[in-house]
């Protein structure tokens, strides 16, 4: 296999990459709210947002203006400092996790652009060789946002929300780690680039066909990790008003949701790269296009599941994670180990 010699990664390139990630992912995260409302509306035979702009497309702008200009209320008796920094933990960790994710293909800025001409922009901002673990660790740290928000706001619903955050974290974390362990054993590396290299042989070489159980377990745990509907215990409005977000308004509330949608994109990227062939060319379709299609499919899957299933109780989540998914994951690892040895 021919190894392409890449230009040197400079700090300017990394900074440009970081700005691109920040700008595009926060825009996509905003657009994600529109997509979610539209997809849910079509599945439930409604129209969804229609009034602002054509097909309601400018609804994002209207929502953005609303979030930015709303009064920022800090409740009395709340722990003000923690209350104020909690949303930024969610948003910041979501973007830090994206630093180790290969998001877009690498490119070189054309020479005719002043100042930055000729700078090579890598596809991963921080290409560390333990990428998968770093991403999962950072996304786990992101749950400190809801936890601290709920505890700081001196509100019973908030406390219940943060208690649910703690049990949700302690439930799914084991399943996530064990489910990706089997693919990691097969590839023998923790780098997402190596995962991509492992699946170069086209459709048949996708990790899904070798590790279907691990894929399903990872998806389920990913739903819990991003706090999506079957497991949206933290802020289920039918039970706990708005959980950890009860007392938040304006942009601080918005930051929780930018973080949540950025995490959804991260989980989609990991699933696409680890299990679904990554950014290799598939037949005549270029690699960068196919990876975006895969990411979009998993993002759509999350919305689809939200429209299809009711959410479950916290004790059901713990039962599911510890008594069903974790044993299956362990058995999967043991079988994978035996198959690899024989």
């Amino acid at each position, binding site marked *: 296999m021919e190894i392409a010699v890449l230009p040197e990664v400079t700090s300017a390139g990394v900074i440009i990459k970081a700005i691109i990630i920040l700008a595009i992912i926060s825009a996509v995260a905003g657009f994600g709210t529109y997509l979610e409302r539209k997809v849910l509306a079509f599945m439930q035979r409604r129209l969804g947002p229609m009034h602002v702009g054509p097909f309601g497309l400018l609804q994002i702008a209207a929502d953005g203006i609303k979030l930015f200009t709303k009064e920022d209320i800090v409740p009395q*008796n*709340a*722990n003000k*400092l*923690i209350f104020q920094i909690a949303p930024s933990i969610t948003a910041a960790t979501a973007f830090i996790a994206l630093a180790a994710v290969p998001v877009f293909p690498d490119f070189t800025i054309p020479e005719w652009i002043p100042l930055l001409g000729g700078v090579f922009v890598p596809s991963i901002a921080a290409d*560390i*060789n*333990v990428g998968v*673990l*770093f991403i*999962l*660790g*950072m996304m*786990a*740290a992101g*749950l*400190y946002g809801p*936890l*601290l928000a709920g*505890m*700081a706001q*001196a509100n019973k619903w908030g*406390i219940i929300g*943060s*208690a649910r955050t*703690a*049990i949700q*974290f*302690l439930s799914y*974390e084991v399943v996530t*780690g064990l489910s990706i362990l089997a693919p990691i054993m097969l590839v023998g*590396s*923790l780098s997402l680039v190596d995962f991509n290299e492992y699946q170069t042989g086209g459709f048949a070489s996708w990790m899904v066909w070798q590790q279907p159980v691990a894929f399903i377990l990872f998806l389920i745990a990913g739903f819990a990790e991003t706090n999506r509907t079957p497991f949206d215990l933290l802020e289920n409005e039918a039970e706990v008003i708005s959980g950890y977000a009860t007392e938040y308004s304006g942009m601080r509330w918005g930051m929780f949701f930018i973080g949540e949608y950025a995490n959804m994109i991260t989980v989609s990227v990991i699933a696409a790269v680890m299990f679904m062939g990554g950014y290799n060319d598939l037949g005549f379709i270029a690699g960068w296009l196919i990876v975006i299609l895969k990411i979009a499919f998993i993002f759509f899957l999350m919305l689809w599941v939200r429209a299809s299933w009711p959410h479950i109780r916290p*004790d059901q989540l713990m039962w599911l994670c510890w008594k069903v998914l974790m044993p299956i994951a362990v058995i999967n690892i043991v079988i994978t180990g035996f198959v690899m040895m024989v």
Partner: protein
Amino acid sequence: MYEQIAFYLFSVLIIGLFLVTVLTKNVLYSMTSLAAGMVLIAGIFFTLGADFLGVVQLIVYVGAIMALYAFAMMFFDVTKDVKENNTNGSLIFLLGGLTALMFVIIMSAPIMSENIQALYPPMAGVTNPQAVGMVLFTKYLVPFEVAAVMLLVAMIAGIILAGKKMDQSLTTEDDVIVEIDILEEDEK
């Protein structure tokens, strides 16, 4: 240059955060600064090039302190300060002395460390997790297994202590009792 900036930045932040952990009277501040300090220690590992250890530090302590928060939530009103009641002067004296001793050792460590040779220098051509695995499963196999057995013992003990009535669901039982009460009242 960048490494030095990163090291001093992380060190100052870690020491500051752990000071807050010890000195504050608010449970929420103390645990949040503990968690933040633990995450920043991962930053020190990253500047040393020990990526794997850094990530493990991150994952392990994020989970562990999350469990600690759960206990704090049950024991304290986290929005109020805790009333401390410190009457033991000799304990403070002892802890202060130990801290001073530790500072002396830390400061003198660089002088000593020039004479220390690494017994198992990192091998060339292996990635970080592989190097950790090689040392863990050869030189430190016995401590590793002993730690595993200890964790297993702790887990079994925890299950025995907590698991006496695991088959009965407390919530559903209470619901049934409440429902029976309501029904009885209706009949009256």
